[in-house]
């Protein structure tokens, strides 16, 4: 695309796609913004009226909002921590040559292909159930009191479920990064007297930094909007103990039929996502530059 003519032709060709994407984005955003300033309740159709900033004041002063905000950040942070640490360790393990490597790699990646609702149901009924769950059986085998995971540790349980789903993604990205590490560099470090631990800290980790950045950025986008796992397992409860921002917006709109308040929550969530994005790009985006 060197000449003036090809450049303007390219612009012309791209215009429909760009316009389409722009409309796709701006119409829902504008409507949400508009609704967020209305008194709009599904139980009273046709009675919408201008409400000013009432919805925002209502949503932001709701005690559930503070809890949801903290839960959202804890959930995202917790899952990121587990997937990064676990993913790195698993990638190191899978990078070793061993018998049945192909099968094991496939098994490790499998959770990523399970739908969120399905995996949440499996965890809820087969693993974490206080009566017939496997964890309860293990606890009883050792003579311990089974834990009622979803009631006593709801946010932790949801974090575990989501982390289980995202661990394969982190492992896959980090494994490919690990395999691209120059063999001679490792050998050079070995000759330079670096033991396995120093080699990991000084050679492998810096090499993985960029892949980790990618994992953090992509996972954060998806983890801010975790919903199905919460709906299926805890319904955001007990109380608001496992309610995140996404679930709070859902509850506002479809359990309390308050579309105006939910829209205000949606806008708050958009702002939060942008704050997190700016923060992340400032913090680790420089890793993506060459």
């Amino acid at each position: 695309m060197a000449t003036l003519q090809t450049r303007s032709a390219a612009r012309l060709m791209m215009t429909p796609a760009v316009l389409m994407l722009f409309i796709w984005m701006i119409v829902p955003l504008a409507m949400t913004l508009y609704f967020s300033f209305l008194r709009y309740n599904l139980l009273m159709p046709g009675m919408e009226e201008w409400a000013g900033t009432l919805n925002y004041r209502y949503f932001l002063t709701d005690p559930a909002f503070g809890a949801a905000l903290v839960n959202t950040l804890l959930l995202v942070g917790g899952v990121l921590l587990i997937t990064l640490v676990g993913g790195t360790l698993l990638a190191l393990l899978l990078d070793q040559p061993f018998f049945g490597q192909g099968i094991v790699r496939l098994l490790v990646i499998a959770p990523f292909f399970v739908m969120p609702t399905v995996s949440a149901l499996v965890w809820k009924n087969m693993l974490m159930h206080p009566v017939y769950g496997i964890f309860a059986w293990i606890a009883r085998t050792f003579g311990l009191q089974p834990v009622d995971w979803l009631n006593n540790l709801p946010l932790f349980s949801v974090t575990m479920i989501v982390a289980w789903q995202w661990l394969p993604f982190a492992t896959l990205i980090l494994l490919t990064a690990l395999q691209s590490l120059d063999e001679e560099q490792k050998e050079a470090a070995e000759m330079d007297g670096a033991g396995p631990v120093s080699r990991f800290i000084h050679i492998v980790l810096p090499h993985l930094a960029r892949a980790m950045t990618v994992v953090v950025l992509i996972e954060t986008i998806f983890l801010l909007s975790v919903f199905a796992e919460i709906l299926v397992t805890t319904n955001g409860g007990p109380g608001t103990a496992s309610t995140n921002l996404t679930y709070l917006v859902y509850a506002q709109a479809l359990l309390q039929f308050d579309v105006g308040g939910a829209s205000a929550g949606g806008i708050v969530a958009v702002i939060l996502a942008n704050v997190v994005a700016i923060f992340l790009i400032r913090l680790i985006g420089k890793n993506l530059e060459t």
Partner: protein
Amino acid sequence: MGSITLEKVSKSFGTTKVIPEIDLEIADGEFVVFVGPSGCGKSTLLRIIAGLEDATSGAIHIDGRDATREAPAKRGLSMVFQSYALYPHMSVYGNIAFPLKMAGEAKSTIDDKVRSAAGVLNLTDYLDRKPRQLSGGQRQRVAIGRAIVRQPKAFLFDEPLSNLDAALRVNMRLEISELHHQLKTTMVYVTHDQVEAMTMADKIVVLNAGRIEQVGSPLDLYRSPKNLFVAGFIGSPKMNLIAGAAAAKENATTIGARPEHIGLSKTEGPWQGTVTVVEHLGADTFVHADVDDVGPVTARAPGEFLVKHGERVFLTPDAEKIYRFGADGDAL
């Protein structure tokens, strides 16, 4: 002190024997070059000495001490890799300091040693740069710097110049030779380029298919190659190897004559041939000719020798410098 002795060292990958039993002595302070065509096992041999590969059998003594089962870092050798293997996220300073840091030396000692190594290698102005901001030659020097700060018993070079362009290669060749004179440390150098071997080595080890074909000083190998392989490998352009009637006249299966030992004339000589290609290098002229009843022969004439493709020339091999080889390829 840095003598290295290999005793009956062999290496197999699975059932393939890459290196049959090899014995080799490398004296302290010697510059030894392993040379051979690609795939001849020279790099594997170097990696066995370094400890990056285990020898299947045999023993390696470094400085008289048995090092066969020692970890690479314990052997007190340092290695310069073909890809340089610099640490991309560390500055030049960090790269050179890394082995010292791993050895747990004090900060001030590290600083002194890094700066003096950088001084030797003209890297002082680049200490803050990252490897990707350096040219090929500078990267090469950083890799050498990383090797010399540890003051190893011996340096191992694995084809260190093959990623450089021709002009730089000649320069670095001189620099490495100079470094050897300065440090007087044992150096083991692997290359497939016989010019590098001839110009730098105190002792050349010619390898072929894992076997040592001949060991000797560059001129020894040039003057008296033990067999056909060494004869064809050492010297540039290659020695002319002629079989058939011309060889039978000398009571040999094959005879060899180096291009520089064949006289060229436009008027007289025992061999007559048609010129196929002429290469004018200024100082020399290489004439490739198709000699009647002998086959293709390359001859080297000093200075300018003006012939053209298709012309007839006469060649006179120097009778005293004809090499004779038997049916098994060994020199007679």
